[in-house]
């Protein structure tokens, strides 16, 4: 493993040994680095992510949560702290090993072919509250898009246990659920002629729909802000994807909305677009 990680885009370096010295992990702990700067360099789909103001995220998986007491936030299942080193800013998230394995196992066991789960709300497929679940899903995204810096073998062992198929399927389902959750609200605003509200909410749903589409194409993300960038990068691969990106841009920025009737029409067109996009997933 290189002892210095170079971020060419922002002309910065990260001395791995110095970083580990600063953290002083237990000998069994697993450390990996993630975040937009790392992700932007790892995959062509993520090209363009990260900038001069981006932090570097460090993840620690440990058997001993009590060891890390000097933290800013302690949510029980996850502790968070921050520090700076050699011009880089770091966000550190600490997770307990057995909880991480439990979650990965739970994700692996979901049977999406099972008819009985059709009537179960996606969030209820796990016995975790919404905030914990979202954070663990984000954690899975981060581990998929990360580089190990300490106890690398153990890191790869955890990665191998992740059922990627279920991770993507879950997130397709979650994003479509988000669309359906607010779909009738948009229709209600359209029927009530509340054009601005209808367009604002419809555009939010368009982002969720693209999110579902991305996961269906095995493209992962954990922050909505990256969705347009990922779609744009993906659109360079073929004409069909380019068509989807161009129609997204047209509906978002290519329309001249002058009055309430224009807002209503834009919201209706977005709903149709969403329907066509996700009915194939």
């Amino acid at each position, binding site marked *: 493993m290189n002892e210095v990680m170079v971020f060419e885009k922002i002309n910065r370096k990260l001395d791995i040994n110095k970083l580990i010295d600063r953290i002083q992990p237990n000998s069994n702990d697993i450390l990996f680095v993630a975040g937009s700067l790392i992700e932007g360099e790892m995959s062509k789909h993520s090209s363009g992510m990260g900038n001069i103001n981006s932090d570097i995220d460090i993840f620690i998986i440990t058997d001993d949560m009590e060891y890390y007491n000097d933290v800013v936030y302690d949510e029980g299942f996850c502790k968070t702290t921050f520090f700076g080193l050699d011009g880089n800013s770091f966000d550190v998230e600490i997770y307990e090993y057995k909880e991480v394995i439990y979650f990965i196992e739970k994700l692996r066991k979901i049977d999406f*072919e099972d008819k009985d789960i059709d009537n179960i709300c996606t969030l209820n497929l796990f016995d975790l509250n919404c905030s914990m679940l979202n954070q663990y899903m984000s954690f899975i995204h981060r581990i998929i898009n990360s580089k190990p810096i300490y106890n690398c073998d153990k890191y790869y062992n955890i990665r191998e246990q992740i059922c990627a198929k279920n991770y993507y399927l879950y997130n397709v389902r979650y994003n479509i659920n988000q669309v*359906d959750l607010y779909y009738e609200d948009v229709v209600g605003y359209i029927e009530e002629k509340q054009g601005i509200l209808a367009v604002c909410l419809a555009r939010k749903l368009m982002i969720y729909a693209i999110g579902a589409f991305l996961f269906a194409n095995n493209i992962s993300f954990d922050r909505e802000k990256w969705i347009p960038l990922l779609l744009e990068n993906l659109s360079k691969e073929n004409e069909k994807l380019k068509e989807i990106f161009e129609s997204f841009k047209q509906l978002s920025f290519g329309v001249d909305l002058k009055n309430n009737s224009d807002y209503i029409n834009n919201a209706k067109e977005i709903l149709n677009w969403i329907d066509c996009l996700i009915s194939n997933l």
Partner: protein
Amino acid sequence: MNVDYIVERNILCRLRKIRKSYVLIGVSKCFETNDMGKKIWDSIDGKHTVKDVIDKIVQEYAVDYSIVEKDVLDFIEILIAVNAVKVVN
């Protein structure tokens, strides 16, 4: 029902893929449909005529016009009956 009609979707209705089946939701009941039903549903945009929908499918699948015409008209009649679409002209 004739081929010069233009039909528009009820915006409450949307098609979702649930375990390899297409299901129309948003009206009082859910309706399962097949690939052809999905194709017709996707082609209904409130702008093109039923004939345009038929022509598009005939062109794409290279099948006999009369067969597609019957399928499309039958399906759209069902959609109208369940309030999933309405005639706009």
